[in-house]
């Protein structure tokens, strides 16, 4: 091959790569543009009602998104409250107490849990977990402490509680596998120093591993949160898709809606009504802004923590 044809191929190769780069950038920009464009009819007619309004009735063109937005935030927050301690326990067991032989099994379980399609979490939650929980968990609790509004009846099997539970199972693998990574990077000399002073494993974890891993675990948590906020199928199938929660009943066992469940269950029928359709897309825009800002925060924090590891 002579020099000329080489420089031709070089240019061709480089411009192909550049075109690919421009296409992906184009997709990215178009994504925002088209969502904003399609939200405009709703935003110009109803303004901030999509954020603040508490009822939703397409027949009267009332589109208040607050219950769905709160449902998204609340179910994800509950999932985090459960998933974080569970993940920390798993990371502690993996790196400190557990036998090394078990490690491939633990990471295998995490990988497979993360790989199960969300629609399968959905069908399992809907047809297997929901009836069991309703009879063995929700009804006894309502019978005993149902006077507390948070646990009041009636027991809907499909509830914001069930959605949070399934989200917990779905985000635990994310948070725990990153936590395991970070825990294993704790500098050996620090740990050995503590052990040499006669510290127990728990004291080493508390005083060396936790402070070292704090930021990284926080970033992992936020990543898990981002996943939970955007999860659609599993949540849509188990949350019951009602607008009762939280303004008519704040019970954990009440059925509810999230942004994603609202969109998934209503979007196809909304195509005939431009404002209805546009309101759903405005909700999607709210979700997009929440998840982007969350990922942004996680990235800044994890970059800082990566910097710290090099010290």
């Amino acid at each position, binding site marked *: 091959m002579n020099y000329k044809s080489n420089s031709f191929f070089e240019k061709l190769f480089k411009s192909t790569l550049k075109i690919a*780069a*421009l296409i992906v950038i184009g997709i990215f920009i178009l994504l925002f543009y088209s969502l904003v464009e399609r939200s405009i009819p709703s935003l110009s007619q109803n303004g901030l009602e999509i954020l603040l309004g508490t009822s939703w009735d397409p027949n009267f063109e009332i589109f208040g998104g607050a219950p769905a937005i709160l449902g998204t935030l609340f179910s994800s927050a509950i999932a985090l409250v459960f998933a974080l*301690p569970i993940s920390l*326990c798993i990371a502690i067991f993996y790196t*400190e107490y557990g036998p090394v032989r078990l490690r491939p099994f*633990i990471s295998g379980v995490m990988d497979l849990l993360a790989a199960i399609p969300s*629609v399968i979490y959905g069908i399992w939650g809907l047809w297997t977990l929901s009836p069991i929980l309703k009879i063995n968990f929700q009804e006894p609790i309502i019978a005993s402490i149902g006077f507390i509004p948070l646990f009041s009846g009636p027991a809907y099997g499909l509830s914001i509680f069930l959605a949070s539970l399934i989200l917990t199972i779905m985000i*635990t693998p994310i948070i725990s596998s990153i936590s395991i990574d970070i825990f294993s990077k704790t500098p050996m000399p620090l740990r050995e120093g503590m052990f040499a002073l006669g510290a*127990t494993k728990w004291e080493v974890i508390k005083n060396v591993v936790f402070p070292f891993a704090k930021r990284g675990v926080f970033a992992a948590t936020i990543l898990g949160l981002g996943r939970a906020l*955007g999860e659609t199928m599993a949540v849509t199938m188990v949350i019951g898709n009602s607008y009762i929660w939280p303004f008519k009943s704040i019970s954990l066992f009440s059925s509810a809606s999230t942004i994603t469940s609202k969109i998934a269950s209503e979007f196809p029928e909304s195509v005939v009504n431009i404002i209805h359709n546009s309101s759903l897309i405005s909700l999607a825009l709210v979700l997009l802004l929440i998840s982007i800002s969350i990922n942004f925060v996680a990235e800044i924090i994890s970059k800082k923590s990566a910097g710290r590891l090099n010290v």
Partner: protein
Amino acid sequence: MKVRRAKDFIIKLISTLVTLLIAVPLLWIIFDVVIKGASALSLEFITSLPAPFGETGGGIGNAIIGTLIINTMACIIGLPLGIATGIYLSEYSNGSRISALLRTAIDTLSGIPSIILGLFAFSIIVIRVGHYTALAAAFALSIIMIPVVSKATEEGMKTVSIDIREGAIALGLPKWIITTKIVLGIAKSSVITSSLLAFARISGETAPLLFTSLFSYYWPRGINEPMASLQVLIYNYAMSGFESWVVKAWGASLLLLLLVLSINILVRRFSTKVV
């Protein structure tokens, strides 16, 4: 002293129990899907069309084919873009403005909920075309693949040592040959691994298909038509509440779970470095 030991023991006990506990949902889901799904499986189930409502028998053959067609199209769009942008970021970026923008685009796209990608494909394709189409579904899924493959390609290529690159330069090879034959050759395994995992991932994605390929009770007639898929079939049938349909949804779940988990297990078994 005793208190300290006791605390340590309690933490050990709790972390052990919690770790054992997390295996419960995994085994439960797998056994549940296998037991409930196996009763639906038959040759008819995987080779024939859904029976009209009220009739017994029938299958989900069109949904199996549909998922494979949509995934293949998503790969045709997503893999070249993912690999090319990965190469660009690793070898040709030079800190240019395009590469900074590309990196932002890829990082952001990887965190966007998949339902939003479905809405995006609906807005720019389904509305233009005027009807639901499998092409829009493939487009939405390809956006999920791009960041996964791009990041893995970039990272795989960046691990190639400077010695090898300098050796190749000293031989007088042009840069595009070095990039495609040598660097990409070494990074091949991470490209293949990530492509397979991305394929497994999109096989389970349902939300991007709901408003794009929708569903169909017929064999696929063309890629610019609504198309059945395993994922949407599971959702529709499971939510319908009719017992015979729910059984079919479990059967479809079993096939989908087999596909997704076997790819994951194979990839993790044969690749040393997990993406």
